[in-house]
């Protein structure tokens, strides 16, 4: 089985995941800010599965293949409308005051999110370093 050729703009994927991680950070910050607010319900952000699904669109390109052994060409994946899902968990109760924020859990998400954000921004930096490398090496 030949892998279909799909054009995905790497920068778009990096941008969208950095945006989603920043949103997740904001939501965790808000959860922890409201740790002592009665009746407050925590929110969670999910985007990984959605992003994965958005990158897996296998719509055939309108380009013709003149031979069945040619690589199949697929359409460009657009992430313009991609947005992380923010969900408020209204159905759980953590404490007597109706607040369901768990400090340990939020700290865990915060640490994980921070690491992910740092690694994604590192990858973005490398992407630009590659571009710069291509530009400067081409000059010589």
């Amino acid at each position: 089985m030949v892998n279909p050729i799909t054009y995905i703009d790497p920068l778009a994927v990096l941008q969208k995941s950095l945006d989603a991680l920043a949103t997740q950070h904001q939501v965790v910050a808000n959860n922890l800010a409201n740790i002592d607010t009665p009746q407050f319900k925590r929110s969670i952000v999910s985007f990984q599965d959605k992003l994965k699904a958005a990158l897996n669109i296998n719509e055939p390109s309108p380009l013709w293949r003149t031979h069945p052994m040619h690589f199949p060409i697929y359409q460009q994946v657009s992430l313009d409308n991609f947005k992380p899902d923010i969900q408020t968990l209204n159905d759980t109760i953590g404490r007597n005051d109706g607040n369901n924020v768990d400090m340990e859990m939020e700290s865990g998400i915060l640490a994980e999110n921070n690491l992910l954000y740092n690694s994604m921004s590192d990858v973005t930096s490398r992407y630009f370093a590659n571009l710069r490398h291509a530009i400067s090496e081409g000059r010589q």
Partner: protein
Amino acid sequence: MGALSGVFAPFSITASALTAERLRMDVISNNIANANTTRTIQGGPYIRQRVVFAPRFDPSPSFAPLMSMMTPEGLPVGVRVVGIQKDPSAPRMVYDPGHPDANAEGYVAYPNVNTVNEMVDMISATRAYEANITVFNATKSMALQALNIGK
């Protein structure tokens, strides 16, 4: 884009929580300081106070699409203190006929402040403050990391 949205929103969210927790700490300190105050300007003993927290919402209309995902009031952007409430519980009556504030039966009305409860609240406020400091540092490290993209 105001301070309540975008990359710098978590700073504002955390700052609101730090302010709220500090105010809570001030109120707790005041309660402990006045644990034995038997007379006030309003008359009667000091009455224990407590802060009331509520989520803060972003009123900016630019967040309309995100708002629909959250709550009808908008994207939550931190916490705010809606007020300082008086504890309605009864004062502590101590028999001390020699006290200048003693009533006809010889009982003195002491504030309804339980120092142990205040201490527990104080620990809770400290921990919440520390958790928000952690968030603040994480936000700062993320913002610095983002600034380094492309360097």
